[in-house]
């Protein structure tokens, strides 16, 4: 444990994120807290972002970034679980180990990974299961994220399946465990390991070393992370160190306690009465977020405004994004981008409108997936104690002057 190093580092006083205050009444889900102030501190390779913690680093992307399909690396959100992230990784000696129920254990260097396997790319949304948690009332446990604990990038790497093929799976192989390099302060603390069942994996699952044409940023899991298109980010293990194949499920904190929702049809419960059984959050639901305008935007009367934002789901694809500029009374289809980055990517949308009334105007967006799932109104989102999977219709209220 390199605890002392944290204290040796120069202290930087920062405008930390203030305690969230939401005006909605108890028991009602509302809009997440919107566009909190960006911190004065820039983290390595990042522009200043909304900051909740330095150790582990927790950084949120501001709303106005979400106007295009890809999220820039230096504005991409950051979420770690443990205090001790290796501060130095030598790409020349870095090796990923594959072991357990395999015919042949593998120790693959970064260079071998880049040269001895087929190189593939997938564009996919990475979203924290607790994204928008601040929408839940009463306040759900966990960091009170706004809607920027997410991003979309083109990930380049090697198919997990190709690596497992080379190792050769034992006939009893059923579970794959992924171990990250982050360390706790105490040896007894459980490591950050995720397990996935073999049947959940397909050719879109890759080990990625590149993000939007650059090496993975340090805080996004350099030099290698798991990319699991369609799934919430808790499964996208960063700084991968080890992959272990087993025949039975191992009980793990980050699988069995954290990142779970009530195991019922609506995945909901009441603050007074928790549902007795839970299930992992796994796949993302359909959602859209407005990138422009924001509540800070100045919108002129009778000007040509183009509302922009992004929409996504777990890979079924986005059918339509509906926009309302009259507080939800009437809805019209937005224009979608060409979708050529694939079904796991954001669909950027745009909607031109001319504000003809002065004063407050509320813009709302509702995404509908290709299987007909659509976003509910924020007030119809049902509560769960972890504040996971919020996907209410997004709202931005601007002043037309």
């Amino acid at each position, binding site marked *: 444990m390199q*605890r002392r190093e*944290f*204290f040796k*580092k*120069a*202290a*930087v*006083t*920062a405008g*930390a*994120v203030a*305690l*969230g205050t939401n005006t909605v009444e108890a028991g009602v889900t509302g809009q997440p807290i919107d566009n909190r102030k960006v*911190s004065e*501190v*820039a*983290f*390595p*390779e990042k522009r200043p972002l909304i*900051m*909740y*913690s*330095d*150790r*582990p*680093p*927790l950084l949120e992307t501001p709303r106005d970034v979400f106007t295009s399909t890809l999220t820039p690396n230096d504005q991409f959100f950051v979420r770690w679980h*443990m*205090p001790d*992230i290796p*501060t*130095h*990784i030598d*790409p020349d000696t870095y090796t990923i180990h594959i072991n357990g129920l395999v015919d042949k254990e593998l120790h693959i260097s970064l260079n071998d990974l880049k040269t001895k396997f087929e190189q593939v790319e997938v564009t996919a949304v990475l979203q924290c299961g607790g994204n928008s948690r*601040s929408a839940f009332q*009463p*306040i759900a*446990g*966990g*960091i*009170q994220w706004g809607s920027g604990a997410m991003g979309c990038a083109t990930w380049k790497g090697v198919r997990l399946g190709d690596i497992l093929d080379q190792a050769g799976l034992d006939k009893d192989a059923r579970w794959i465990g992924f171990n990250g390099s982050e360390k*706790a*302060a*105490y040896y*007894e*603390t*459980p490591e950050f390991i995720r397990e996935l069942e073999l049947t959940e994996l397909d050719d879109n699952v890759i080990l990625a070393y*590149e993000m939007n*044409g*650059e*090496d993975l*940023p*340090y*805080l996004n899991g*350099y*030099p290698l992370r798991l990319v699991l298109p369609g799934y919430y980010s808790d499964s996208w293990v960063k700084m991968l160190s080890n992959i272990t194949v087993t025949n039975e499920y191992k009980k793990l*904190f980050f699988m069995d*306690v954290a990142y779970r929702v009530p195991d019922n049809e609506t995945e909901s419960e009441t603050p*007074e009465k928790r549902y007795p059984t839970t299930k992992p959050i796994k796949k993302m639901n359909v959602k859209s977020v407005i990138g422009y305008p924001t509540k800070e935007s100045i919108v002129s009367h009778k000007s040509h405004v183009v509302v922009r934002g992004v929409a996504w789901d777990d890979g079924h694809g986005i059918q339509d994004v509906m926009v309302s500029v009259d507080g939800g009374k009437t809805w019209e289809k937005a224009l979608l981008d060409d979708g050529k980055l694939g079904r796991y990517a954001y669909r950027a949308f745009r909607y031109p409108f001319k504000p003809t009334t002065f004063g407050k105007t509320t813009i709302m967006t509702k995404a509908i997936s290709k299987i007909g799932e659509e976003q509910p109104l924020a007030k119809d989102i049902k509560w769960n104690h972890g504040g996971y999977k919020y996907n209410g219709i997004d709202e931005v209220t601007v002043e037309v002057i």
Partner: protein
Amino acid sequence: MKKLILSALLLASPLFAQVKEKVEVPYVAFPIKMGKGFDAIQTNCLMCHSFGYITNQGRQSKKFWHGKVVKMVDHFKAPMDEKAIQETTDYLFEHYGNGKLK
């Protein structure tokens, strides 16, 4: 010729060799309220996470804060005795509580 040199340079440098040297994550001094039990917070919480991780949970009930502290002991193996659990819970509820016991 100029073009040749440029492409040679591009070839020679890695895409973005960001972790060739030690990365420094900034240390941030989060504002935190002083009061009874603060010593226990400093001793027991700061080992693993910043004060920001605490204050950004939002205002919560006594039951919530007690549950969080117990989670740190049970799941994350924080070495805390009953007294420390009590002191940290009381502090958290007093300064970051919502006034509700449950």
